[in-house]
């Protein structure tokens, strides 16, 4: 089954979407969209370093993304610049340094477009294993620390007062995000990773009544976007990574048009019931 490049792309893409769903929900809840973008952009620096030092690509990207997130934490604590300014600096600085470094390395041939926009149709059998292996690890970790993650997202001080360790939770979350970025780079590309995190989660919001439902729905919606995007790219001969993002956007717009089951109505009904 995995002999066919298209099947490999489908399986890898679905695996990534299932992983990105719950993680993306936290990115949305914690308002970390731009933060995710910054980590993703730094991946190109990881690519350049990996080529320069002949080091494992995945590990290199992971280490750079994790370092950038820690650097941001340190800079935030110094409190001289606002977070979005810091993110803007880190995001584009790492991307630019990566591009400059790559241009210096005339001895290596590098498919820059492939890194920036992904090359899901070129994923190997080993890549598929990596996506699913890494994905299962990430989902397992998220499920394992689900309660502290949710609690510290709602209010870190409350979580800490009631015996949790929100700082550690946050750190673990950032490492998971760095891992997913390293895995996802090959599939949707550095510039489009965050869209696969955020758009399915945002789409799921309107149909969810609990964080758990939203996480599962985001996974399913992401998987649907991957399937739709890949078949679309096959049919219309469009680049696969952007096609997946466009499909995700299509689902999001569709969700805005469909009439959501509003909990506003439910609430007022419950209210009247209670006061009657």
């Amino acid at each position, binding site marked *: 089954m995995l002999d066919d490049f298209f099947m490999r792309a489908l399986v890898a893409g679905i695996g990534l979407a299932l992983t990105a769903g719950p993680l993306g929900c936290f990115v*949305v*809840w914690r*308002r970390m969209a731009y933060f995710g973008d910054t980590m993703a952009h730094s991946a190109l620096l990881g690519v350049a370093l990996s080529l320069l030092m002949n080091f494992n690509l995945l590990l290199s990207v992971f280490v750079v993304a994790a370092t950038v997130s820690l650097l941001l934490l340190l800079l935030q604590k110094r409190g001289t610049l606002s977070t979005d300014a810091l993110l803007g600096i880190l995001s584009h600085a790492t991307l630019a340094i990566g591009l400059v470094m790559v241009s210096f390395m005339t001895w290596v041939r590098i498919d820059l477009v492939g890194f920036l926009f992904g090359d899901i149709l070129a994923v190997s059998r080993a890549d598929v294993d990596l996506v699913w292996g890494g994905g299962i690890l990430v989902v397992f970790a998220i499920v394992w620390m689900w*309660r502290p993650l*949710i*609690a510290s*997202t*709602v*209010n870190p*001080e*409350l*979580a*800490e*007062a*009631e*015996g*949790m360790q929100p700082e550690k939770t946050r750190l673990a979350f950032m490492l998971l995000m760095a891992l997913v970025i390293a895995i996802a780079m090959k599939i949707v590309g550095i510039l489009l990773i965050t869209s696969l995190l955020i758009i399915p*989660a*945002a789409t799921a*919001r309107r149909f*969810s*009544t*609990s*964080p758990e*439902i*939203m996480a599962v729905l985001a996974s399913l919606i992401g998987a649907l976007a991957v399937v739709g995007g890949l078949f679309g790219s096959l049919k219309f001969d469009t680049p696969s990574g952007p096609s997946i993002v466009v499909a995700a956007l299509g689902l999001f717009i569709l969700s805005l048009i469909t009439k959501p089951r509003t*909990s*506003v109505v*439910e*609430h007022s009904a*419950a*209210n009247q*019931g*209670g*006061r009657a």
Partner: protein
Amino acid sequence: MLQTPTRTASPLVSLAGVGVRRQGRWLVRGVEFSIAPDEIVTLIGPNGSGKSTTAKAAIGVLKADEGRVERKAGLKVGYVPQKLSVDWTMPLTVERLMTLTSPLKGAEIEAALDATGIRHLARAEVQHLSGGEFQRALLARAIARKPDLLVLDEPVQGVDFSGEIALYDLIKTIRNTTGCGILLISHDLHVVMAETDTVICLNGHVCCRGTPEVVSQSAEYQRLFGARAGQTLAFYNHDHDHTHLPDGRVLHADGSITNDCRPNDGHHTPIVPTGRAGPMRIVHTHGPDCGCGHDHGVVPDGAGQQEKRDA
């Protein structure tokens, strides 16, 4: 009527000489108090006086920069923070909010929702609750996990007048039924007088503290309760210019001005909850320019008080 609650149990939390410093400035310093099971301790003081900071230091959310904070081993805290807003992007029903930090049985959730009177809202999203409903939901969440110590940071904010009284009643009931210790942060004098075992007035340091009696259902109390708005106003006077806090009969805010309100006339005890408790003690002495804005006449319990009662 004068029964003094005896507390033999070891304290849940005790603070000794605690100070918290941020960016070279001491937010609070020299804070000393402890909370025993079944005790309500209330921190009062103006904005920025370090009430929340002190509470956070007590439960370990903030690290004390000096002094010692000792918590009972395995202390289970229920916390209602001063500010909590749930982002719209997170779908969170009241029911789901209950199990935020610890898993609970359905019956435990229902009991907590019943106690706070919001069982009919169990399936409502928290973002759609009114201020009072949300505070009740937060309180329900904090008590559902059966804490040893309940920490309530301004629990009546955004709650209307009658809802406020109901919430304070609820807090009293929680203490009476569960026997947990409660650390309450308030700028409402009436709850201080009504339910609190120990009042600690903060203004960057402990200005004064007192141990009002347990509530009695005296006519005076009822009257005080009714004249609550005036009391609150008077309390702010205490905060800002430190004229003494009058009892119901010498309440300046409602127009009944007495003659004994001159500086150094021996009447400037900070809080005088007449009818139910003795005056508070001033527990420190000041220099003329210590900056805390106090009247510096330390009033011995009794003398000034006697005069006031006659007024």
